[in-house]
């Protein structure tokens, strides 16, 4: 059973169609990355899931509950973090978390322990009595994550959690999300920064102009698009003859000669990286460096989208 199931979703703002016939399914424990350019419909979809927006058509089920018919039943089961901070600046960090603990009707006797836990998890324990408006952007974002985790929801809806943050804060947020993945949370996270999602998502959906243009694991999407993986190799005995023999290996698409290395483009479903290494050794190549390039999500994104917005 899918934990989140969205079918044939249509959302309109006046005459503008923001989401067109969008369907997606997220199994429990999966980290689903929602990628798309600005204005593609990511935030709108997340708002529908967060029961903040009524769609024109379609169905949304969270943990088997119809979220459109029973929004009050699903609200305790998810944590929603919007693409802005959404923090009360006149409260201290401790007051802020207790505020939302009370809003989620948590047992009073447990609140203190839970707040301590989420503060520790988000590395904000030292900031307990700091006013929220004195926190940096990265800390505010972590505080937002701490708030989302207070009532221990099964589903996290995170809209652009790392937008506007400096590199250090982005890495911290990314590590935190990996931690949540390890905790078994189901996560829907949106971003328009591709490599960020590539490193933490088990599956991604690419959305453009309100339509889902591709969905699946990164590997599936690359295969769908017939994308090749590049492997950078430095050879101690590089000759034209050796390069011709490498090019003739089944599964090798092309071999490009760079200044200090060669780039071997392979069809990974036919020739995995490990097998390429074996074949090179078998061909007598003396290898100084063997470096498969990370999957090129930007190429996939550019190939799938046309820069249209709703």
């Amino acid at each position, binding site marked *: 059973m899918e934990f989140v199931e969205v079918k044939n979703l249509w959302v309109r703002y006046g005459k503008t169609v923001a989401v067109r016939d969008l369907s997606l399914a997220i199994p429990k424990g999966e980290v689903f990355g929602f990628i798309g350019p600005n204005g593609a419909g990511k935030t709108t979809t997340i*708002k*529908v899931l*967060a*029961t*903040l*927006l*009524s769609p024109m058509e379609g169905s949304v089920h969270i943990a088997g509950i*119809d979220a*459109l*018919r*029973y*929004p*009050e039943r699903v*609200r*305790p089961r*998810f*944590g*929603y973090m*919007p693409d*802005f*901070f*959404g*923090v*009360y*600046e*006149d*409260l201290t960090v*401790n*007051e802020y978390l*207790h*505020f*939302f603990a*009370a*809003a*989620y*009707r948590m047992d*009073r006797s447990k609140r203190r322990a839970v707040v301590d836990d989420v503060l520790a998890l988000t590395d904000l324990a030292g900031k307990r009595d700091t006013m929220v408006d004195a926190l940096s952007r990265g800390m505010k974002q972590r505080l937002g994550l701490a*708030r989302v985790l207070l009532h221990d929801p099964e589903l996290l809806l995170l809209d652009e959690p790392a937008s506007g943050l400096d590199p250090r804060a982005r890495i911290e947020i990314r590590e935190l999300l990996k931690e949540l993945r390890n905790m078994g949370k189901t996560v829907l996270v949106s971003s328009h920064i591709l490599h960020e999602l590539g490193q933490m998502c088990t599956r991604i959906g690419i959305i453009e102009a309100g339509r889902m243009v591709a969905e699946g694991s990164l590997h599936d999407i690359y295969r769908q698009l017939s994308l090749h993986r590049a492997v950078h190799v430095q050879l101690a005995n590089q000759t034209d003859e050796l390069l011709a023999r490498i090019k003739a290996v089944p599964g090798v698409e092309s071999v490009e000669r760079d200044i200090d290395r060669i780039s071997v483009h392979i069809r990974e479903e036919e020739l995995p990286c490990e097998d390429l290494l074996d074949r090179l050794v078998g061909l007598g190549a003396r290898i100084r460096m063997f470096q498969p390039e990370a999957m090129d999500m930007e190429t996939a994104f550019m190939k799938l989208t046309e820069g249209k917005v709703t």
Partner: protein
Amino acid sequence: MSLSLLHAPILSKELIEQAARPRTYVLRVTYAVLLFAAFLTAVHGVTVQLELGDSVVGSGRRLFALLVCAQFTGILLFVPALMSGALTEEKEGRTLELLLLTRVRPWQILCEKFVGRLVPALTFLVLSLPLLAVCYALGGMSAEDLLVGAGMLFETCLQVGALALMCSAFCRTNLGAFLASYALVVSGWLLCRILPASIIQVGVLWEVVLPLSLGSVDFGGVTFRASVPTLLSIAASLLLARVFLVRRALAGPTRPLAGLFRRLDGFLERHGLAQPLRRRYRGHVRPRADLPDRQPIAWREVAKTPLVKPAHLVYGLALVELFVLFSLGVADASRNPAEVLVVLLGVLWVLASAAVLGLSVSAISTERSSQTLEVLLATPIAGRDIVRQKLRGVQRIIRGLLLPFGTVFLVQLWWARTGGRLYRLGPGVQQLSYVFLACGSVALFLWLFAWFSMWVGLRTPSRPRAVLTSVVGLLVWSGVPVLAFALAVSGTSFYYLKGWEALLLLVSPAGCVWAVEVYPGLYWDVSEGMGLMVAALVLHAGLLFLFRALCLRRADRYLGRARPRRRTTSGGFFYAPPEQ
């Protein structure tokens, strides 16, 4: 040649923007309709005169005077609204600092904004040209009168515009500039009315404020010499606007009351008075818990909102109570204490209404502007509970305000019972009915204002617009029925509260409060008056419950939550109205 080629980019932008706004045309048509309607009413008086066989020759001068007065009033009403946003709109959009970084000089910004916003105001003056022709045709006025009248109106336009532009340069927000502009203009006009003629007519003051009092003078005697000080006042306003434009371009929010309370805190701490006060009021004005318990929104409203949080509430009420006691002392020493008391209650009502309205209307719009509402809506708290908890601070303020109001009512009762110090309250039943109606009206109207403003705040996306709508709504609701009442009873006994005219007065909250304070004893027919007053209070109680019901039943929809979808009998879906 286009204006941009003349290096007037801001002026051209202003004119293009205004030309594209439907509001410009709506305002112009509204103004023209009102002006022509007023003029036609006056012309009707002339035709009646004609039917009676009197000569109408020479009546043009009277019509012209009326036209000038109408235009003068129009300038006072419309020009501040047109001009006050000139610079604050740029400040709110964070574009003023960008403008100041360009090669456009501050004076140029100021002048182009001034001219750009004056153009629509001047078109209002041009609207009266055909009416002037009618006046001139009827005779009785010279070409010099025409020139002086038009010149004075033009100067008034410049003067009021320059004042509003100065406010716009000084204030941080549109709302602040809007209110400050009207406050200045009304103060100037009141100054002309209040100061004795002997003072006004001597020296510079008369000449400086001349255009502001044009409506009440015989403009035929005015000479252009009087324009010099007026022009000087315009220049002074523009000069101040130039100074504020740069100095206050990046001004942050200033909270003078909060600053005063902070200083009071410091004073009490230094003199060791803070701790005993905290102990004394714990549980009464302080929240019982330092952290939220079951109602987190109510906790935050009470513990953190300026004016409502414990220290502010104590200080604020102490200040108001001191003011009330001082005023009561003045009233006691006065020969006519009733008038002092009416003024005191008027001030109290304005303060109380402003506090209640400001808190209620901002309750939700502040959450929207600080982007915390969505986060709150994603929690399991029901929409109606959010609204109810949001009003907890207002509830506390209203309870606190019963102290100064109660002081005034009880002192009046005491004076009335001990030797008839307050003649307008008769004995026995009238005293009791006064106290009953006075206390009832405070509780009723403050809650009515609170729910009305909450309803406006829920329906209006931006805070400034919500505040403006709420203020204008309340002013119209309070003022229009009173004006209608005044017109209906003009020429008859103004002070007797009976008949259908009384209903006109009593549909206005201000009219009700006025009736409670002015009519008892002296002018009331107790049986009829009491019945009318109770009916008015019941009517307003009905409105209170209507606004409350609207806010609570439609809370989720107004707040922006998805409405629960219901299945139809045919198997399809529809979105049910919220909170059936």
